[in-house]
């Protein structure tokens, strides 16, 4: 039996990984919940967030508090990229079959991956933690970096923020009305097209933010887009695509299964996650907290 301190460390590690994934998955889930588009390129937005964050940092001064500014700037750029893509290209596909949307977002994955290689090359890049969070604390005999604590708090904060946006703000009410009856909302005078664009932008922002914030923990490499989209898909399959709390739960479960799976199957802990996903797909295809599609 491993020591409690070690188990606690695993738990916190899983929690950190889960909250990183939640930040990204929340955007994917939001976009799907509102626009009914499954955006394969969400992982590419994440990758662009990482590269852009690195780029801004390299301009304003690596290893400084400008990290925060760089992360926000990168996320905002990714949001603008998302808005441009939705406004100019994607919206023309809503009336087509879903297969075309999937193909389109898949094409985006390939195009954006090549763009990233052209701009930033194929080497590894990395960013250091901001000085304010470069320390660590001891909790129950485990060393926990401040930065990880920040990520563990950021996840719930984003969840709460999104919930407030959807359920306590006017824009959120409009978005929920659009999901229920898009045509009727348009007939009442709402410009549903631009509402969708805004939501797509928010979803892309979250992906970009996740990418920019992950840079002190993971190095930036080509292929991180595909790696994360696989993980994020698993998260939303477990939790329920389109459901905010489902996505949150899915991310928590993913993180813990991965962290503790390592103890049982040291090299193959990802298989524990795949197995869980397979079981959920068979027993409850719409995820733990999701709703069956119409």
């Amino acid at each position, binding site marked *: 039996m491993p020591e409690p301190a070690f188990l606690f460390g695993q738990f916190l590690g899983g929690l950190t990984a889960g909250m990183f994934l939640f930040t990204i998955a929340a955007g994917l889930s939001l976009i799907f919940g509102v626009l009914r588009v499954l955006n394969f390129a969400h992982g590419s937005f994440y990758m662009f967030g990482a590269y852009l964050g690195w780029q801004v940092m390299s301009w304003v001064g690596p290893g400084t508090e400008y990290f925060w500014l760089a992360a926000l700037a990168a996320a905002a750029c990714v949001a603008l990229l998302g808005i441009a893509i939705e406004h100019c290209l994607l919206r023309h596909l809503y009336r087509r079959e879903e297969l075309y949307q999937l193909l389109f977002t898949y094409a985006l994955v390939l195009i954006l991956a090549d763009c990233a290689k052209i701009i930033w090359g194929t080497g590894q890049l990395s960013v250091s933690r901001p000085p304010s969070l470069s320390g660590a604390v001891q909790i129950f005999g485990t060393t926990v970096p401040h930065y990880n604590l920040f990520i563990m708090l950021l996840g719930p904060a984003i969840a709460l923020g999104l919930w407030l946006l959807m359920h306590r703000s*006017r824009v959120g*009410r*409009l978005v*929920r*009305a659009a999901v*229920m*009856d898009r*045509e*009727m*909302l*348009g*007939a*009442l*005078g*709402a*410009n*549903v097209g631009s509402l969708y664009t805004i939501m797509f932008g928010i979803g892309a922002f979250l992906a970009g933010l996740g990418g920019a914030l992950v840079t002190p923990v993971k190095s930036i490499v080509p292929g991180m887009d595909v790696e994360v989209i696989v993980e994020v898909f698993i998260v939303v399959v477990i939790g329920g695509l389109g459901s905010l709390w489902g996505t949150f739960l899915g991310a928590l479960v993913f993180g813990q299964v991965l962290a503790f799976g390592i103890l049982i199957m040291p090299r193959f802990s990802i298989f524990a996650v795949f197995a869980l996903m397979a079981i959920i797909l068979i027993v409850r295809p719409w995820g733990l907290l999701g709703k069956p599609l119409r």
Partner: protein
Amino acid sequence: MSALLELQDVHTAYGLSRVLFGISLQIGAGECVCLLGRNGVGKTTTMRSIMGLTRPSAGRVLWKGRDIAGWMPHRIARAGIGFVPEDRRVFAELTVWENLDVAERAAQRRGPWTVARVYETFPALRDLAGRQAGFLSGGEQQMLTIGRTLMCNPELLLLDEPSEGLAPLVVDRLLEQVGALKDQGLTILLAEQGVDFSLRLADRAYVLEKGTVRHSGPAAELRDDAALRHRLLAL
């Protein structure tokens, strides 16, 4: 009289199935006009064509003299036309208050209608303010859809089959309430299969048949002349 809304030779189709074959009609400011006709003659389609929900393939829809055919529905709503659909279509998972609030925000048209005034007009809604709209009765949902459209401060109200599926007593109350709106000066276009409801309210009537206007004239004429009514509507 220059009409507030005028349809000139409007043709509309759903894909390949053609439904309207040249509808022309006029509505003056302050008038209450009804569209009569049997099942499937194109009353709803006429309203959808006005609202831009189904684009006319030919013809003109003139709103205060401007051709709005081809505009997006939200632009038409913001220009001052309010649509109350036949199957009610409340936002089922939003509360009554949220339904009204969403409509106010959606159209962004200033005017006399506020949530308080909707509650005054339909007092039953006040007590249901926090209830999810999907749980309301048919009559309550009908009041809510009308109230919701009024929150957009329309100058013209398109009312599609407001009495459909409601108990006679509820219909009587609705009739009074819509009558009150008319007395306040709101212009109304009413579509109904049943003649009772509409002929008690309307000033003029158009009778549709297979996507064309079969008859038009004062509502009183149809009200008083049972033989004419029978010939046109076979009721």
